[in-house]
């Protein structure tokens, strides 16, 4: 199995605040990797650096063997930001079409991928409505569809299930698992909900800019002899201090 992502000794500070401290880890292809941690722990900063929107002060990040930031690698990354970045004056279809064009899909690919992505997030019937008429959940689903539009090898999802009802949350997670199992996608998600962390292959717990524990959910529970990941998080944090 190949390495999809490699983060090497990354440090980042904004002004005097040290947001990320000596982060290092590797992600294998075809795995779901979860970043768990409270708001403000530095998850989004790390995600932005993986996507190449920001650069680390020290250390380096490699995606699919290429050093970031790199425009060509971005073609292989599906990104879903924490807040929905959609054009509200346009319809769902026009939004998908626009992003498909940015990834330079040809006409036939565009049509197929839009159909596929819309069906996946269950928005086919609402594609011709303007996004301003969408509910919060529909917008979240459209964002996910956009992340999938160019059939990327790596999916990077920043809190994909925030503000989504439990039923939809379950269906999105089932879809992520299917993408991993059937299409071999590498998926990174951030979340602060521990029950979602249980579904990841590997999780890293982030606290105040440091990775305090990394492993499979079972390994972590065993290591800290805890019943749930909540307890692991508390135990790991205590040990760290």
């Amino acid at each position, binding site marked *: 199995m190949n390495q999809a992502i490699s983060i090497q000794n990354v440090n980042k500070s904004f002004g005097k605040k040290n947001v990320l401290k000596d982060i290092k880890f590797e992600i294998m292809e075809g795995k779901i990797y979860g970043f768990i941690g409270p708001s403000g722990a530095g998850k989004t900063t790390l995600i932005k650096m993986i996507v190449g*929107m920001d650069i680390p002060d020290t250390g380096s990040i490699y995606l699919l063997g290429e050093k970031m930031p790199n425009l060509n690698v971005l073609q292989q990354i599906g990104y879903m*930001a924490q*807040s929905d970045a959609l*054009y509200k*004056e346009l319809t769902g279809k026009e939004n998908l079409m626009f992003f498909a064009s*940015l*990834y330079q899909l040809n006409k036939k690919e565009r049509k197929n991928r839009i159909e596929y992505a819309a069906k996946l997030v269950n928005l086919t019937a609402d594609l011709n409505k303007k996004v301003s008429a969408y509910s919060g959940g529909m917008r979240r689903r459209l964002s996910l569809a956009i992340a999938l539009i160019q059939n990327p090898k790596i999916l990077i999802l920043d809190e994909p299930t925030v503000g989504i009802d439990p039923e939809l949350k379950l269906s999105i997670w089932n879809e992520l698992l299917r993408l991993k199992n059937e299409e071999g996608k590498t998926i990174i998600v951030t979340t602060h909900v521990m029950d979602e962390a249980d579904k990841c292959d590997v999780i890293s717990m982030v606290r105040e800019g440091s990775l305090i524990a990394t492993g499979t959910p079972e390994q972590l529970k065993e290591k800290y002899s805890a019943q749930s990941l909540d307890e692991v998080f508390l135990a790991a944090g205590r040990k760290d201090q």
Partner: protein
Amino acid sequence: MRTLALIKRILLQIVRDKRTLALLFIAPLLILTLMNLVFNGKTVEPALGVENGSPQLIESLKESEIIVHEYEDISDVEKAILKDNLTGFLQIEGTETKLTLLNDDPTAAKSIEMKVKQVISKELQLQVMGMKPNNDSIQTNYIYGSKDTQLFDTFSPILIGFFVFFFVFLISGIGLLNERTTGTLERLMATPIRRGEIVAAYLIGYGLLAIIQTIIVVLFSINILDINLVGSFWNVILINIVVAIVALSLGILLSSFASSEFQMVQFIPLVIVPQIFFSGIFSIEGMADWLQVLAKIMPLYYAANALKGVMYKGLSLSEISYNLYVLLAFAFVFIILNLFALKRYRKL
């Protein structure tokens, strides 16, 4: 390819936003029409009270378009002026002449003062030389315009340039600002698009709108408001396209220093209003030297020069090309700065 997709999206967004479309295309026409009406209003004939005027004097005053009210034995001139709504009051006692002016509007006061002085000196000439002076003794020639030239004829080219600048600045600035505040700019930066492609798309997308706006405004001004156009119509369009590019690049540049629409609007008194002062609506030659230097760093100064040159003076493209080059230099600098400003969103 990506630029094309972005241009398509920008135009689609604008077309969906009817209010902005109206602002872009109809608001300049409304304001131009209004200003045309305001500046081309008929001049009101001033009313002058006269005491002890000779019939001949009164006749001459009437000839110079003054409404004459005759009075006798007035003790309180001020009261008479206020009561009868006069612009001035002329008292003649023997060889002494006394003119009292209301002076609530200095322009009207100066104008009636000049007319009265002219009439009186003519009367004196008549008495001394015993002959009627020839009114047509001075023949006036005009290099630009004609004797029918109105203030608005010299203003209107400047106004056209100003509207193109102002509306394009505002709408493109807010356009990119929305892209930033809704997070879509950040989202764009997670795709393989280049920063240059984004700047190019904004310039071309809003540039197309500016071209349509310019054509509508110029056609409307010439055909409906009857504004003078001595030079070539196409040169006017060309100048305005260059003006639009400067406004566009400045608008999207300043939008990176604003974090909300409200802050974008705050740039208007800082960036737009001073440019009006230096656009040539007020005489620049009369300003202090250091102020004149300030005028030279205002894009609208060059835009106004070029437009007035073509529309009013009938200059050719080569005669105003210096102004166009300076405008293009402004645009070039702003575009380069834009590329750097976008670095905040992605280092590459």
